[in-house]
């Protein structure tokens, strides 16, 4: 009569499947965290629009006039 053997073989089959399920669950649960960095950027953009401020990066800055060389 064979002594009872622990079924490590079954565990080895299940482990990748468990990892896949964990990864899938992780992809879903990530969304519950507040995206602070993205929120900051979005808020900055809205504030610039409401206050009609020019944003720091990519702003349509008023073109600096090229200095006229002619002097009278």
């Amino acid at each position, binding site marked *: 009569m064979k002594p009872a053997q622990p079924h490590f073989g079954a565990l*080895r089959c299940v*482990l990748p499947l468990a*990892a896949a399920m964990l990864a899938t669950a*992780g992809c879903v649960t*990530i969304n519950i965290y*507040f995206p602070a960095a993205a929120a*900051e950027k979005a808020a900055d953009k*809205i504030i*610039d629009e409401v*206050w009609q401020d020019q944003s720091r990066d990519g702003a349509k800055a008023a073109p600096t006039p090229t200095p006229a060389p002619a002097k009278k």
Partner: protein
Amino acid sequence: MRYPKLIALMLLLVAASAFAQANLEVNTPAVAAIKASMQARHAQLTASYDSGAVGLTRDGNVAVRDPALVPLPQRGQVTTLVAQENADRASLYKEIAKANNKPEWEGDIRNTFAQRWIEKAHPGWYYQSASGTWTRK
């Protein structure tokens, strides 16, 4: 264990998705309407910000900091403008949370805006510090 590289790849995908999905939706008609309303009102409030009559609170609102700095004939109007502005701000934070299907994010959105309003305040404007005291930028 079998497939150690496969498991490592899956964990990497989880980490990557954490960065990839960090985003905040703000482009809805409701938000656009509130922005337009706030933009129009800002033209009327600018003088009050500049004079220090109205300041930015630490919880994402505006408040009449010193009514005496508002000319008496305009005092009622400024009080009304401040109330309207705070109503718009409340709607803004709520609508952004709604746009993301996350009503529970409203508080975090308000806190984020509270910091950014103050950060982007013009020199000379007043804002509330964390302790609540009015500070000049």
